[in-house]
C-alpha cells in the first residue's frame, strides 16, 4: 500500500492550518473524502440527478441505478446474503434507533433484556435506555477488563437467565481501539436465545466485516467514517428479522398502498426507508466503498496496525502520558492523557501546530467513568496517515508536556 499515492487522492490533506501543514489525526470522528467520492457526488449533480424509484424518465432511472448500486456495494462489502438486507438510514445512530424501535418496541416483549458493554458510544446506550424507560426492557451492561477487553465470562453470565432478547455491542471501541470477538459474541448470544447486533462504526473502517461468517443478526455503520459523505448510515439485518419487524418511520417510498383505513408496507428493505432517500450520499458512499475495496482491507489493516504500534511505542515513551486500553486485538485509535494538563489544553496546543486530535469524552461518558477520567485526547488513523505524522504528534506531545511541566 502506497500511502503517498493514497494521500494524493485526498485534496484536503495538502491544506495548512494556522500556518502549519495539516496533520489530521481525527479520522475516527469522521474521515476525509477521496477525490472519487467528491467527484461522484459532483458528477451526479452536474450530469445525472433526479428523484429516484418512482420516476419514469431517463434522469430518474439513471439516478435510481446509481443510488441502488450503493446497496449492492454495501451488501458485497459485508458479505450479506442479499441486497434486500441492507437498509439505508441517516447515520449509524439512525440505524441503532431503527432497531431499538422496530425490533425493540415491535418484536421484543416487556420483561426481556438488552445487553450492551461498558465501552459503548452514546449511540449504542441511549436508544436502549429509551427502550427501557418506555417499553419495560431491562438494560444490562457487560463489564470490561482493565485491559479494555470485553469480559466474556461476565458477559455470558448476563445471558444465563435466558431473558436477553438482544445483545448490542461495539465491534471496535472508538476510545480504546478494542476489537471485540464478534463471532464468539454472536455464538454465545444465539446459544442463549438472543439476537445480536454490532456497532461497526469504527470496525468497518479498519477490517473486513463478514456478517455471515460472524453470524450477526444486525450490523450497523455510518458512511462518513468510511471515507464517504455525511447523511447516510447503513443497517444490515437478516431478512427474516426485517420481515418480522414493523416499520420505524412512515411516509413515501415505504408503502405498498395507502388508504386512510389501512396502509400496507413496501417490501424489505424499502419498508424501513421513508421519504426521499439520501440519493447523492448513496452515490458518494458507493464510490467510497469501491475505493476502500480497491485498496483492500488486508493492506489497510496492516498499515493501521503498523501505525498503531508506532504510536503506542512513541507516545508510551513520553513521561507523564497515560495510554488507555491494552487490548490484544485493536484498531487504529489511541486515547491518552497527560498528567499535568487537561485534554482540552493538549488538543489546543496540538491544533496550534496543525495537528488535529479529538479531546473530550468521545460520546462515551460511562466508559470515561470506568477509566476514572473526565476526558482523554485521542489520535485516530486512516489510510492516509503516515508514520511521520505520528512522529509529529509524539514530538509535539513532548513539548506540550514541557510547556505544562
Amino acid at each position, binding site marked *: 500500500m502506497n500511502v503517498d499515492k493514497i494521500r494524493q487522492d485526498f485534496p484536503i490533506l495538502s491544506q495548512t492550518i494556522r500556518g502549519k501543514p495539516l496533520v489530521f489525526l481525527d479520522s475516527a470522528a469522521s474521515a476525509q473524502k477521496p477525490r472519487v467520492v467528491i467527484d461522484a457526488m459532483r458528477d451526479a449533480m452536474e450530469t445525472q440527478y433526479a428523484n429516484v424509484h418512482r420516476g419514469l424518465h431517463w434522469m430518474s*432511472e439513471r439516478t435510481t441505478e446509481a443510488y441502488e448500486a450503493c446497496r449492492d456495494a454495501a451488501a458485497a462489502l459485508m458479505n450479506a446474503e442479499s441486497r434486500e438486507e441492507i437498509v439505508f438510514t441517516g447515520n449509524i445512530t439512525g440505524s441503532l434507533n431503527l432497531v431499538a424501535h422496530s425490533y425493540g418496541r415491535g418484536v421484543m416483549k416487556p420483561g426481556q433484556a438488552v445487553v450492551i458493554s461498558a465501552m459503548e458510544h452514546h449511540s449504542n446506550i441511549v436508544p436502549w435506555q429509551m427502550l427501557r424507560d418506555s417499553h419495560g426492557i431491562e438494560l444490562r451492561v457487560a463489564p470490561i477488563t482493565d485491559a479494555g477487553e470485553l469480559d466474556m465470562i461476565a458477559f455470558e453470565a448476563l445471558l444465563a437467565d435466558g431473558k436477553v432478547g438482544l445483545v448490542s455491542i461495539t465491534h471496535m471501541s472508538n476510545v480504546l481501539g478494542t476489537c471485540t470477538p464478534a463471532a464468539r459474541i454472536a455464538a454465545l448470544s444465539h446459544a442463549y436465545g438472543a439476537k445480536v447486533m454490532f456497532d461497526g462504526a469504527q470496525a468497518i473502517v479498519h477490517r473486513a466485516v463478514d456478517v455471515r461468517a460472524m453470524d450477526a443478526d444486525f450490523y450497523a455503520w455510518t458512511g462518513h467514517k468510511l471515507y464517504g459523505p455525511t447523511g447516510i448510515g447503513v443497517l444490515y439485518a437478516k431478512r427474516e428479522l426485517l420481515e418480522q419487524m414493523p416499520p420505524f418511520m412512515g411516509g413515501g417510498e415505504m408503502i*405498498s398502498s395507502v388508504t386512510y383505513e389501512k396502509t400496507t408496507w413496501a417490501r424489505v428493505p424499502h419498508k424501513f426507508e421513508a421519504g426521499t432517500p439520501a440519493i447523492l450520499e448513496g452515490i458518494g458512499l458507493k464510490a467510497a466503498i469501491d475505493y476502500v475495496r480497491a485498496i483492500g482491507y488486508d493492506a489497510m489493516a496492516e498499515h493501521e496496525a503498523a501505525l498503531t504500534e508506532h504510536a503506542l511505542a512513541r507516545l508510551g515513551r513520553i513521561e507523564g502520558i497515560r495510554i488507555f486500553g491494552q487490548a490484544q486485538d485493536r484498531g487504529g485509535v489511541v486515547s491518552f492523557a497527560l498528567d499535568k494538563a487537561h485534554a482540552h489544553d493538549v488538543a489546543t496546543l496540538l491544533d496550534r501546530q496543525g495537528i488535529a486530535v479529538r479531546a473530550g469524552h468521545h460520546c462515551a461518558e460511562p466508559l470515561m467513568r470506568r477509566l476514572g477520567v473526565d476526558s482523554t485526547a485521542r489520535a485516530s488513523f486512516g489510510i492516509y496517515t503516515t508514520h511521520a505524522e505520528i512522529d509529529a504528534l509524539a514530538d509535539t506531545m513532548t513539548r506540550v508536556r514541557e510547556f505544562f511541566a
Partner: protein
Amino acid sequence: MSFADDVRDLYQEVILDHGRRPRHGKRLAAYDVTAKGDNPMCGDRVEVWVRFASDGAIAETGFEARGCAISVASADLMAETVQGRGKADTKALFEAFRTMARTGVCPDHDAGLDEPLERLAPLSGVHEYPSRVKCATLPWHALDAALEGTREASSE
C-alpha cells in the same frame, strides 16, 4: 427523426394494437387457476385466469389489466404465446422473456422457444426504459403465480 419514429423503438404497432384491443382481455368463465399481480410502485394491476387442457398444457388464458399500454399488450401477447404450452415450457419462456425485457437481447434458449420469443420480441424495446420493464413482466409474474398455486405476485 420524427416523433413517431422516435417512439417506435418501444411503441411498435403490434404493441399499440394489442394494448388497445387485447384479444384475451377477459375473465374466463371456467378456469383451473388464477392469480393477481400488483406493481405497487406504479399502480399497475393484472389478474389472470388459466384453463388447462387434459394433457396439462395451457388451453386458454384470460386477463383483466389496469395499467399502461405496455402491460396490457404484454399480457395479451403472453396469453397468445403460452397457449398450448406445458408448465415447464411456459416457465422457460418467462425466464427468456424476462432476460430479453431487461437486456434487449434474446438469451440462449431451446429451439422450441424460437417462435414464441419472436412474437414477444416487439416488447424487447422496454430494456431502454428500466422502470417500464416491470410493466412488461407483471402479467408473467401473475401467470407464474397462478401456475405455482400462489394467488398473488408482485413485480416490484
